[in-house]
């Protein structure tokens, strides 16, 4: 697990490894760190969102979330190789990957999660750990024969090499240090959040999914096909995770360990925001992304964590948060059944 400390460096800016000037002396740096943290945090949030969606609908912590997303992204790489990544092709591939992810999620729920629904709770954990390992092997088997890491294109909306200011041909304050792709990441994440919000609160299907998550028995009595809702929940979650993978691949480049770095922070984000709160996942992700960036760049008095300690620091934040609110920021207290 080496190289974890490098995550913040690669995901944020080409930061120096010495403590930087404090915010009041260099506000532009501070602002760009915030924005970069927002971008990183969005990716953590997307993956965390998948985890939360699955947890909310099936009470299962999907440890394989990252590896499934990685698998789909690798498929994307092959498709890019075959079809090219120009404009319309990219979106076609994006769409195909979403469909693939959805199908995978639904399939997994139906085949291996459903049988352990009635079993002791920890069994489902074993299943997702098994899935984690299965997908790792598959990904290595199919794509590790060639050379790694592989490059992956950013969306046609913005390059991952050019800064945002290139759009305006003007050195926008602070924006000079954010790549276009990072900005696109923030926008797409916001779009996903809006889409999901609309789905859950304004559609009959979304209402049925929420109902199933709360009370499957009553849902059956309403005529809701609970099995189908569960599959749908997993499909949606896997799709969201895939988006996260597709967006992070240009930044971290496609390797077998790409999602491993992300998933740890994503879990922290999901727990931080509250495992049954979708907006909490995004909020948690953003908090961790921003804190990570700030902590590895600035020193707090005599203490300088630096990038190597960014993971322990994030976990420390998580730990403290859980002590104050054991079910996360927006999580609901679990009902104590006697």
């Amino acid at each position, binding site marked *: *697990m*080496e190289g*974890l*400390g490098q995550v913040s460096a690669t995901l944020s800016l080409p930061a120096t490894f010495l403590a930087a000037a404090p915010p009041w002396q260099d506000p532009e740096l501070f602002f760009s760190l915030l924005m970069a943290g927002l971008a990183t945090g969005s990716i953590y949030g997307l993956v965390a969102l998948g985890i939360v969606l699955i*947890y909310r609908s099936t009470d299962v*912590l999907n440890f394989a979330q990252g590896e499934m997303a990685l698998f789909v992204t690798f498929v994307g790489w092959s498709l890019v190789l075959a079809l090219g990544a120009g404009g319309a092709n990219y979106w076609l591939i994006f769409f195909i990957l979403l469909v693939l992810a959805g199908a995978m999620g639904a399939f997994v729920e139906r085949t*291996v999660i459903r*049988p*352990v629904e009635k*079993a*002791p*709770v*920890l*069994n489902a*954990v*074993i*299943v997702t*750990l*098994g*899935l*984690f*390992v*299965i*997908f*790792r*092997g*598959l990904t*290595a*088997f199919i794509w*590790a*024969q060639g050379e790694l890491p592989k490059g992956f294109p950013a969306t046609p909306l913005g390059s991952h090499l050019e800064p945002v200011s290139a759009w305006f041909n003007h050195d926008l304050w602070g924006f000079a240090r954010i790549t276009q792709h990072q900005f696109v990441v923030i926008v797409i994440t916001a779009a996903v959040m809006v889409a999901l919000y609309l789905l859950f609160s304004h559609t009959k299907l979304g209402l049925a999914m929420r109902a199933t998550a709360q009370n499957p028995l009553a849902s059956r009595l309403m005529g809701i096909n609970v099995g189908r809702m569960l599959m749908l929940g997993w499909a949606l979650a896997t799709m969201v995770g895939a988006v996260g993978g597709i967006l992070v691949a240009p930044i971290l480049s496609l390797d077998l360990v790409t999602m491993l770095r992300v998933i*740890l922070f994503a*879990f*922290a984000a*999901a*727990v931080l925001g509250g*495992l049954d709160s979708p907006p909490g996942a995004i909020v948690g992700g953003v908090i961790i992304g921003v804190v990570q960036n700030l902590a590895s760049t600035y020193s707090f008095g005599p203490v300088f964590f630096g990038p*190597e*300690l960014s*993971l*322990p620091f994030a*976990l*420390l934040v*998580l*730990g403290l948060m*859980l*002590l104050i609110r*054991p*079910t*996360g920021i927006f999580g609901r207290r*679990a009902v*104590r059944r*006697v």
Partner: protein
Amino acid sequence: MLGIDWFWTVILMAVAASGAVRYLPILPERWRVPASVAVMLAFICWMPFTIGTFDTSLLTKAAAWTIVAIGLNILTGYNGQISLGHGAFVLIGAYTAAILTDSKEHLSFIDQAAWPFWAATIMGGLVAAAAGLAVGIPALRLSGPYLAVATLGLVLALPSVLTKYDGFTGGRLGIRRVPKPPVPGFLEDWAQAFGGDLSRDQWFFFLALFAAVAMTALAFYIVRSRWGRAFVAVRDSEVAAAAVGMNVARTKVTAFTISAFYAGIAGAIFLFTFQGSISPETIGIILSITFFTAIVIGGLGSIMGAIIGGFVVVFLPDLATDAATSIFGEQQGKQLWPTVYGIVLIGVIILMPHGVAGFLHRLARLRPAQVADAARGLPAALRSRLGQTLERLSWGGKDTGRP
């Protein structure tokens, strides 16, 4: 080739023999369990003299990991708290033992002389137990998936901390060349008296085995004691336990501390009998999660299950690799072994929801009438019969934590 070699043959013989003694009506009822344990132990003691050095060292590792499994089972199986991060306690135990036995001046700050290995081992357990105490208290606030992620964070964060603060931990490289305990004089003489020879690897194995047996015996005692009953009571219902006057917090923290102690001892044993060095990367997060997986597969709430689990940790990856390479060929097999491993995991847990130990327990309880019943109905309503039989096979009442 799929592991049907001498090593596995001996294991199969051991299992068959001790199983026969346990379940067949050869001995009077009262003697069966101790006799089967004795048979198993006899086989295990024979093994290092008949299988190769490599397999012996694997068994040694299995013995060490069994200790972790038993401790973790006390926490998760008997007390119901999830820990995915027990690897951290193993690491702490190993580091403590390494630091104490190192004779270089700047590392042993306790006193200048190096500690004897058995003292270092116990100290490793105690330091890990202290860490377990420190973790167990905040863990009171968390449960379920939140606790799982928090403990995962523990084993993730520890290596970075050990690397960064390298005052006496040796930083990234860790501590190398830890002195392994030499074969004691009297054992060498003893072996020679039997016309044989005791190699270092065999000695290490017996050392680890001794520790494993001692810790297992301790576990039996704990589980049957008031503490053991308290653990189970709190697991089944904290509210009810509190209502009858149990100190729930103290119980839960004690479970954490005890399981951390086990992990620390195991870490030290692992260090002295197998690894010989320790670095932040030695106990990775995969291994830590594997401990958890192993005890669930082996069977929660059952000491036998934990022992099976210890074996699973060490041998399942190899078995999976063997299977993968024989099906897919050498190169691709090496890539695909995790997939085979995962399929086995999922298959086992779906078919045996209460782990291997739970399944065996049910199997042993089957009455011939039930089996005949199932067979009779087979041609007719196949699926419903099968369903009813499998339902009967599934664990009916609450787990009482019997091994």
